[in-house]
């Protein structure tokens, strides 16, 4: 049995996954703090826990994500664009459009029939439309992130929230709260704001190609997925365990690199 490891160190979470012979997931872990924190160390402990394996048993390690260059265990660093594409295509071979929203970036990737990347776009130097935007809004609305999805589906109408700036959107939300707008309606407006921003990235990739798959931490929020479906006018498949698809792609690419070495 040959084990490979994929580590995805993002700005707000750390993920790792061990793969056996390039196909079976042995273990995966996610810690909700990212690069520069205890996250990378903790996720490594977590991913090996109860596996009976240690780093010495790993034949090849690929690191990805914002913090990829600070992973000293890595044999190779690969961009998160390539890793997410690899991971998603492995899980869902029909995927042609990927929407990945993480802590500080949002990306749209268009895949070819072989899983090759035809085009990708990422957000600019701005937190609007990212996980950080939802973080800020969750705090202002006093609704934990995990409950944002439930609140979204209780909305009677979607409040208008700016999609261009997190700071301006935050003050809009505060004034709507003080005007008595129901929090559920604001939550739906917040999700719409994220969807509008991300949708622009998807449209830049050309005519929408099915199947559309969503991954990244924000894909765990069904309210955000619903808003995205409405904005795109298309059905979205949420990747299984959407936060670890980058780490999965990294582990698959580690397997390919290992085989190339042999």
């Amino acid at each position, binding site marked *: 049995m040959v084990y490979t490891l994929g580590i995805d160190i993002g700005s707000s979470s750390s993920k790792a996954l061990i793969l056996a012979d390039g196909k079976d997931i042995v273990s995966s872990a996610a810690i909700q703090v990212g690069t520069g924190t205890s996250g990378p160390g903790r996720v490594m402990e977590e991913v090996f826990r109860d596996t009976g394996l240690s780093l010495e048993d790993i034949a090849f390690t690929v690191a990805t994500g914002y913090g990829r260059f600070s992973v000293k265990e890595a044999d190779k660093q690969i*961009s998160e664009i390539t890793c997410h594409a690899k991971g998603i295509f492995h899980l869902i071979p029909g995927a042609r459009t990927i929407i990945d929203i993480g802590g500080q*970036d949002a990306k749209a990737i268009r895949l070819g029939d072989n899983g*090759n*990347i*035809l085009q990708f776009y990422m957000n*600019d*130097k701005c937190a609007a439309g990212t996980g950080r935007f939802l973080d800020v809004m969750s705090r202002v609305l006093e609704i934990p992130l995990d409950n944002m999805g439930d609140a979204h589906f209780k909305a009677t109408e979607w409040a208008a929230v700016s999609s261009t700036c997190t700071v301006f959107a935050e003050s809009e939300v505060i004034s709507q709260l003080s005007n008595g707008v129901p929090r559920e309606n604001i939550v739906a407006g917040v999700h719409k704001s994220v969807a509008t921003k991300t949708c622009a990235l998807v449209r830049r990739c050309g005519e929408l190609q099915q199947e559309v798959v969503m991954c990244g931490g924000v894909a765990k929020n069904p309210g955000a997925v619903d808003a995205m479906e409405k904005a795109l006018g298309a059905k979205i498949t949420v990747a299984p365990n959407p936060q670890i698809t980058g780490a999965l792609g990294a582990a698959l690419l580690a397997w390919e690199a290992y085989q190339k070495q042999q």
Partner: protein
Amino acid sequence: MEFNPATASSKECLAYYQAKLDEEAWQAKKEGRLVCWSASVAPPEFCVAMDIAMIYPETHAAGAGAKKCSQELLDVAHGKGYNIDICSYARTNLGYMELLKQEALTGAKSETLANSKASYVPLPDLVITCNNICNTLLKWYENLAKELNIPCIIIDVPFNHTMPVQRHNKEYIADQYRAAIHQLEEVTGRAFDYDKFLKVQEQVQRSVYWWNKVATYAGRVPSPLNGFDLFNYMALIVCARARDYAEITFHKFADELEAKDAAGQYAFGAPENEKYRITWEGIAVWTYLGATFKGLKNQGAVMTGSAYPGIWNLQYTPGDLESMAEAYTKVYINTCGPNRYEDFMNIVKNAKSDGLVMHLNRSCKQMGLLNQEGAEYVNKMLGVPFVSFDGDQTDPNVFSQAQYETRIQALCEMMEANK
């Protein structure tokens, strides 16, 4: 030790002549001759023929960006009320002008000016601008003229909605040139020197010839030329194309590249270090020149093409004003989309590039506007992948190094997959 252009390297020539141009402007001031601030692609031929010293605010601002001191000049402009959405070359220069103006009015250098790493240049006696690369240059230079109460020469160049350049456009621009000559005669109180004008035009053509020659080395595989060097040497095609300084330096640089190629030395040293060849669209990120270069070098990506340095491919027939008019109006960003896309595709083709890097420059809407369509056209015609990143020419607040590196790495992974 006295500088000897015969024995100096092209890099030494570049540094020497850049400093010399500033010294000459100060000397002109001392001798009571005129100093002109000029837009980078405005024709210098008229002023140089009348022995006027030239200073180029865009190059000065780029230098301030590269020396990481543009922020303090931007802050001066912001303090005067200039909005952050205005071009950062304009803001950097208007901030710098304000510091020089205060010095001229009070006789005392402000702390910001005294400590600035930006090269110290004299205030202008007149300005010349041309809207062949953008329209911000009109209001920026009108503003300089108004603030300093000095003459402003404007060469108005119509946008080319169709190509080739229309006859009436050339005639219109040639008339603008004649008006500029008349204006200069009034400013200097002397008759225009047509004999010297012809000699200056001939000099510009020799400078352009050697500038274009240098760029051709990037077409070789592997490339002996590191395309980022064009960003540095560009200072002389902008500021000294009407002098022999540019010709001497570029001729030398071309000879060095020829020798390098013959010796099997390339942009990144050994030939195998050139893994990918990219075309760069847009102005350099001067404030992060090293970071943008290293981001590519770390992946083995050599810049072999760029439309930006080609802006100064100003070929024309000396003595023919309409030919000169055509050269200054057919700058690619002053032409319609289809012409621009075709030019861009030819650059990628000649550079034998495997990928495109598009700088979405917050300052330069004119260059950024058709980037996406241009890249899509090249992608469709040549199958070359592209990536874009956010940045700015001299405002350091827009660029994110980590975001840039991720995009470049992903592009290289796409180029690798295409091999």
